[in-house]
């Protein structure tokens, strides 16, 4: 069996940042495994700009952001297996991979970093009646077809869901000569970034129909049109509000699902809200030496935060392999309550924390003029007033090690959205 010190599964932004950090912290035997023929992951097809404002203080396109990290991984001499699919992994950190040159190979790692990213929610997950004609794509598939392979998926488009990829594709398709007739969003608000709504829809006069959904798809062999109806407070279509849009293509931008089949094979403790592994403050899962980061951990809006979190995972994977390994200390649990849907991390070791610890999370609804409050057991220790909180934007609070250290009896940290 082949061996390596740290196996990084996935060569997208998370895997690249984790691998580079691990190598820089003294581990030579880092191996990146990716199923694509190129490092960079989904960034390769995200050709729009707006990446890296936090990390590099400039607005890069996806491929440019990826190139910064790919170059670093090259410079550091990190080994990469491309065109290679990870089929299986077990609790002894034995990984089964397959590619067309070596066939099946088993690799035993001392530490594993899970960075598989996420997948788009498919049509099958929605209950839209109609036949199964050609011309229905997830927004990311259309993005790959246009930006990597050079094919236009259609000429007249309707987009269901106002996630960022759907918004970005509305602009891409318009620029490439298609007519985007409407974007329908079942919720009363968009989950996309405001900047994308303005620069991808408003700039081109594309209507965003909030509280609307697709209720019928017409066409047997190819999409001929869709019916869009308004929905009520329970997201049920309101009879009599249907409008027919003739189109040859329907794009779906209806959510992303962390890809965690491998995590389940190692029986990691999972968070039912994010469907991804539960991690502590160093991004270690319930299995010692197995770390998780990137969109496989929780779906991000900004790649900068992916790189930042993955670098912490990489550094600590290096510590797991090379030391100094500190004995697990006291664990403070982190709880999401009142409008906060989940938190990353779920536990914090106050002795191990360096300087500050960030807790990232999403909120359940749109809240105006509410506060993000942090409680240490029953005591409110932090409060910050927010003009607006929306489920589409990841939020964070920062805790100081010094504040955690002051409370040696602290058992639970709770993050809440409250009126005051």
């Amino acid at each position: 069996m082949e061996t390596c010190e740290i196996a990084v599964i996935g060569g997208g932004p998370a895997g690249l940042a984790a691998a580079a950090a691990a190598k820089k912290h003294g581990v030579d035997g880092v191996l990146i495994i990716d199923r694509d023929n190129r490092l960079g992951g989904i960034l390769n097809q995200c050709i729009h700009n707006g990446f890296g404002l936090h990390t590099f203080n400039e607005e890069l396109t996806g491929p440019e952001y990826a190139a910064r990290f790919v170059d670093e991984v090259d410079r550091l001499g990190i080994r990469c297996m491309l065109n290679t699919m990870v089929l299986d992994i077990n609790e002894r950190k034995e990984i089964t991979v397959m590619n067309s040159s070596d066939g099946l190979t088993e690799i035993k790692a001392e530490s594993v970093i899970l960075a598989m990213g996420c997948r788009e929610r498919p049509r099958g997950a929605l209950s839209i009646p109609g036949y199964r004609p050609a011309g229905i794509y997830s927004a990311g598939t259309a993005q790959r077809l246009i930006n990597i392979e050079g094919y236009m998926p259609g000429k007249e488009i309707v987009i269901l869901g106002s996630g960022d990829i759907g918004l970005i594709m509305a602009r891409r398709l318009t620029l490439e000569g298609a007519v985007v007739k409407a974007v329908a969003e079942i919720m009363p608000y968009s989950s996309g970034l405001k900047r994308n709504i303005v620069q991808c829809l408003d700039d081109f006069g594309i209507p965003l129909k909030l509280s609307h959904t697709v209720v019928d798809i017409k066409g047997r062999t190819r999409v001929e049109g869709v019916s869009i109806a308004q929905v009520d407070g329970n997201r049920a279509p309101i009879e009599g509000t249907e409008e027919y849009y003739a189109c040859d293509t329907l794009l779906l931008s209806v959510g992303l699902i962390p890809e965690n089949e491998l995590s389940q094979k190692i029986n990691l403790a999972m968070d039912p809200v994010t469907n991804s592994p539960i991690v502590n403050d160093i991004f270690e899962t319930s299995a010692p030496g197995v770390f998780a980061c990137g969109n496989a951990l929780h779906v991000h809006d900004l790649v900068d935060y992916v790189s930042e979190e993955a670098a912490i995972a990489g550094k600590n994977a290096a510590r797991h392999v090379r030391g100094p390994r500190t004995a697990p200390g006291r664990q403070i649990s982190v709880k999401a309550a009142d409008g906060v849907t989940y938190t990353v991390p779920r536990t914090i070791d106050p002795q191990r924390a360096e300087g500050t610890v960030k807790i990232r999370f999403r909120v359940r609804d749109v809240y105006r003029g509410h506060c993000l409050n942090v409680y240490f057991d029953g005591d409110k220790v932090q409060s910050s007033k927010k003009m607006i909180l929306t489920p589409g934007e990841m939020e964070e609070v920062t805790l100081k090690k010094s504040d955690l250290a002051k409370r040696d009896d602290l058992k639970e940290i709770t993050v809440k959205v409250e009126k005051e």
Partner: protein
Amino acid sequence: MITTLTCIVCPMGCSVSVALENGIVTEVAGYSCARGKKYAEKEVVDPRRIVTSIVRVVDGEIPILSVKTKESIKKDKIFDCIASLKGIAVSAPVKIGDVIVKNVAGTDVDVIATKSIDAA
């Protein structure tokens, strides 16, 4: 002339109205912060965008090269810029940052490669 736009500085998305007379801002209303006021003024007086698109690649490991305007160009030049990219094919290898079109659509801004592509 009064233009109403959605501010993109933060998720609030304030609806900001800007009154413009002879190219000079005379009144701004509806903003909630100084950054929003500044954004709205700039967006009305001189709206600009970085334009990103693709061109074909000949003999490359992949058939499509992603490109962008090196700086932002005037918003009303977006479609002229895209039109100038139609029909362009570059030969691999291409390096990230290579100039693909000089002075695109008379904007004084170059279109550059955002990806490196090796020869097939």
